[in-house]
């Protein structure tokens, strides 16, 4: 058996990270490091209202008094927060109105990433906000959406044009006091997307933000805020990539979602930050706080994530189920290979009556990687009739990786029904032999088996992205098993 394992590991070779290129574009950088002046400088550069500057400064003051969390099952060398550049912007007009104004290099970059920014070439039915380093470079289909009263723009524009709306909700789900990285993000976030769907409106297209890190030595701190008013519906997609570099780059984002009465929000992520090389050099440190508030009755929130990138992932998209009969879902595939580490999962906090939540987590570990599921299901005293179902599976490829599960249940209401199932499996020699005997190469077989294993989650992704995600899973394991 050990021999078989060896064969599998040998055959898992290093894949090529196809998004590892760098765009050669003049970039405006501010000096390295962080202090109050840097926070003010970022706010000034973006021409923000005073309340925003004050909010940032308060967050910064709070951040200085907190420490990097160490409870995750992650082994990370200390991060020197004074050695990071907190703002990097492609040096051109800060935001482009028409395509003629967009730097051709930028267009080429996003084309290469498969994200055409010209509306006539764009993916059918997807509006994109493209963020490069610290700024949003282009938002497509903005005018068309505006006709329905939908606001979809960069956070910078939102702070300028919809300041009161942003002020009402920003930090209402993830306050800067929430955790170390949320505080840092609140102090220095540079851009991101804002989306507001008015009452009763069903957003006619997928909204999407594509995050790209380009400049070296920088961190990316984006902030996304989605508000679905009463009876509104929106499906939101997020994609991320970064160049191949030997240094570790920091990405600390915050996503907040508010769903009012009868509203529904679906948030899907395909996270493919540069994962580092085969020896574990370089790669993005991905510390993300994502949380949604099901504020009104019957509101629904669903998180779907496919995590294949980053050297380190620390991320727990969560649902606070405040409204009666509201529901939260979390579907996750987290794949780690080589020396990647992931500590990811969710929190489902049941506050309202008859609230429901569902967790399906599929971890895949290969190489020398470590992959942890961490979850919390909390049922408050008054949450009568709350129900949760959790399924946490781990798939192990080879014998040098780790798969861990840390589920926490905190149930304070006797009428609650909470179920938890967990399995751990291995890609077996017999499965591979069976596939080989039907004419498939080992690499293809592994891709097929892994995609089958992740199917319940991939099915939750919007069509176009499900196909991409399938390819990505196979690619991420290329040369990893065989």
């Amino acid at each position, binding site marked *: 058996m050990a*021999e*078989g394992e060896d*064969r599998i590991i040998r055959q898992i070779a290093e894949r090529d990270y196809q998004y590892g290129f760098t765009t050669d574009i003049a970039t405006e950088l501010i000096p390295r490091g962080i202090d109050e002046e840097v926070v003010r400088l970022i706010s000034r550069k973006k021409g923000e209202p005073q309340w925003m500057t004050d909010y940032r400064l308060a967050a910064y003051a709070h951040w200085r008094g907190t420490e990097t969390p160490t409870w995750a099952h992650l082994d990370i060398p200390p991060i020197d927060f004074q050695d990071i550049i907190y703002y990097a912007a492609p040096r051109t007009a800060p935001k482009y109105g028409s395509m003629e104004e967009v730097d051709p290099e930028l267009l080429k970059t996003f084309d290469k990433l498969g994200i055409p920014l010209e509306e006539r070439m764009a993916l059918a039915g997807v509006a994109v906000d493209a963020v490069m380093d610290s700024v949003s470079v282009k938002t497509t289909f903005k005018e068309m959406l505006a006709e329905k009263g939908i606001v979809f723009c960069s956070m910078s524009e939102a702070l300028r044009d919809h300041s009161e709306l942003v002020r009402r909700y920003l930090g209402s789900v993830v306050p800067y006091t929430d955790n170390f990285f949320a505080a840092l993000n609140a102090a220095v976030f540079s851009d991101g997307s804002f989306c507001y769907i008015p009452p009763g409106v069903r957003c006619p297209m997928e909204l999407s933000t594509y995050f790209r890190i380009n400049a070296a030595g920088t961190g990316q701190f984006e902030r996304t805020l989605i508000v679905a008013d009463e009876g509104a519906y929106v499906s939101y997609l997020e994609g991320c990539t970064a160049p191949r570099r030997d240094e570790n780059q920091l990405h600390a984002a915050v996503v907040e979602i508010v769903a009012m009465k009868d509203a529904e929000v679906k948030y899907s992520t395909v996270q493919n930050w540069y994962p580092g090389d085969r020896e574990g050099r370089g790669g993005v440190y991905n510390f993300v706080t994502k949380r949604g508030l099901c504020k009104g009755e019957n509101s629904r929130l669903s998180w779907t994530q496919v995590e294949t990138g980053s050297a380190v992932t620390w991320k727990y998209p969560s649902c606070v189920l405040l409204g009666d009969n509201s529901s939260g879902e979390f579907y996750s595939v987290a794949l780690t290979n080589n020396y990647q580490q992931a500590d990811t999962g969710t929190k489902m906090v049941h506050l309202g009556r008859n609230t429901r939540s569902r967790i399906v987590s599929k971890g895949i570990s290969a190489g020398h990687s470590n992959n942890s599921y961490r979850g919390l299901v909390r049922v408050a005293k008054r949450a009568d009739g709350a129900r949760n179902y959790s399924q946490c599976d781990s798939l192990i490829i080879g014998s040098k990786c780790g798969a861990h599960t840390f589920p926490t249940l905190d149930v304070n209401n006797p009428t609650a029904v909470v179920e938890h199932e967990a399995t751990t499996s291995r890609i*077996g*020699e*017999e*499965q591979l*032999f*069976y*596939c*080989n*005997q*039907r*004419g*498939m*190469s*080992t690499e*293809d077989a592994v891709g*097929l*088996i892994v*995609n*089958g*294993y*992740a*199917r*319940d989650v991939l099915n939750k992704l919007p069509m176009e992205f499900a196909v991409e995600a399938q390819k990505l899973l196979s690619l991420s394991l290329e040369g990893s098993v065989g």
Partner: protein
Amino acid sequence: MLEIRDLHASVEGREILRGIDLSVRAGEVHAIMGPNGSGKSTLASVLAGNERFEVTRGEATFLGRNIFEMSIEERARAGLFLGFQYPVEIPGVTMANFMKFAVNEKRKYQGLDPLPAGDFLRMMRERAAIVELDQKMTSRAVNEGFSGGEKKKNEIFQMAMLEPLLALLDETDSGLDIDALRVVATGVTRLRTPQNATVVITHYQRLLDYIVPDYVHVLYNGRIIHTGDRSLALRLEEQGYDRLIAEQA
């Protein structure tokens, strides 16, 4: 099509095959019989390329090529099919998807384009009917939750889809009730052509009532100790293996 000379193979240092000689030509059906532990399944596994076994001596050619220089998948694409005694489950992968992949790998090897979706679906429908396999099975995950009989039917369904030149059927009859046995065996017979060959590995002669062999080989202790025609199988049924083994000793 298949030529085996003095083949020796072992697992974990224990020799299982101790000098096998066998020739299989196009159009033929061979049955390999023998008591438990005689090496029947090992022979099939070694020919298909299962790396648990080590070939220590001898040679084998498939379509004139040294079979041990071909990868498992290359042997499969060239037309070697193993019907598994214990078919493997692959959760989440539908039979349809699995078969599409397998069929197109073979077509690629033959220099053909992938089969258009419509043709593929039609082909699945037709071939599933050969073994009376419920169409719905093709949208279920590979062997997951299949009964013993369904798994064996599913093996022959895959054989029908892949149209191998040489099929090695490893105890396809084990665990089948009499009706399922008839369906599976009739299916195998219907797939017979002058161009292909079948090697049936079995304990019992009852399968050979349906799949009529040209040759019956008795494998004992890693060697073929006797070869005959169909009457040999009937004789074994009556007299058991012991008497034949005693005669050959």
